[in-house]
């Protein structure tokens, strides 16, 4: 079990990543509408989950 958040620097990086995540969703909603935002939300969430799983198994 490797803890992904262990210091202030990692927390800071998390802020930036989350900002990007929500910016993408909000942008999709503003430009293309709610359905597109939902698609972006699901796609990004799956991508993040996959990335976490891969990082875990690599560690």
């Amino acid at each position, binding site marked *: 079990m490797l*803890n992904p958040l262990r210091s202030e620097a990692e927390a800071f990086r998390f802020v930036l990543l989350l900002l990007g995540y929500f910016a993408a969703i909000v942008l999709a909603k503003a430009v293309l509408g709610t359905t597109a935002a939902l698609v972006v939300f699901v796609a990004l969430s799956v991508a993040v989950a996959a990335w976490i799983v891969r990082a875990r198994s690599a560690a």
Partner: protein
Amino acid sequence: MTAHAPAVDVHHGEHHGPPPAHQSSRVSAPVLGMFLFIASEVMLFGSFFTAYFFVRVVNPDAPGWPPEGFHVPVFVAGVNTAILVTSSFTMHWALQSIKRGNRAGLQAGLVLTLAMGLTFLLTQMLEYARVGFAPRDTAFGSVFYGLTGLHGAHVFVGLTLLTVATVRAFRGHFSPEHHHGVEIPGIYWHFVDVMWIVVYATIYLL
């Protein structure tokens, strides 16, 4: 939560105390404690977002979001968001400074962060005064004030922690080796920022 100042251990060794505990993890105890506390806080926000979800999505006769006749100041809150996100940068800079032994950078970073946090809180209060509806005006008002108010309370707690860190920074505490007293409020501050991004996106934008 920020209690463990390494700076106080000057007198250690003069008396017979407990044997030093064995450190069985790479994460230090206060940092781990802060992250677990934040996990708990995230769940508190989670319960408020659950209420939001029920009021906006599950409720079969939910009106629009915001309902007819209600208006949320997206632009002002957007500026506020920018301020808060910037304050995360200055916070990060403050900690990086003390890690390199730059005390002036630490002090400047903390003061800037503190100032931006205060600005955010004051803007939020002004927004409450002018938004034109109250917590008792339908469930939309309740959820709006509930989530922004809960976040505001966390900003207040974060500012309190930062004030403590700032006071100590100006009194000459902290060093490149010992800076838990800055790092832990810093982690909390980033959490406050993260929660605001979620609140802003879900309440104002989406």
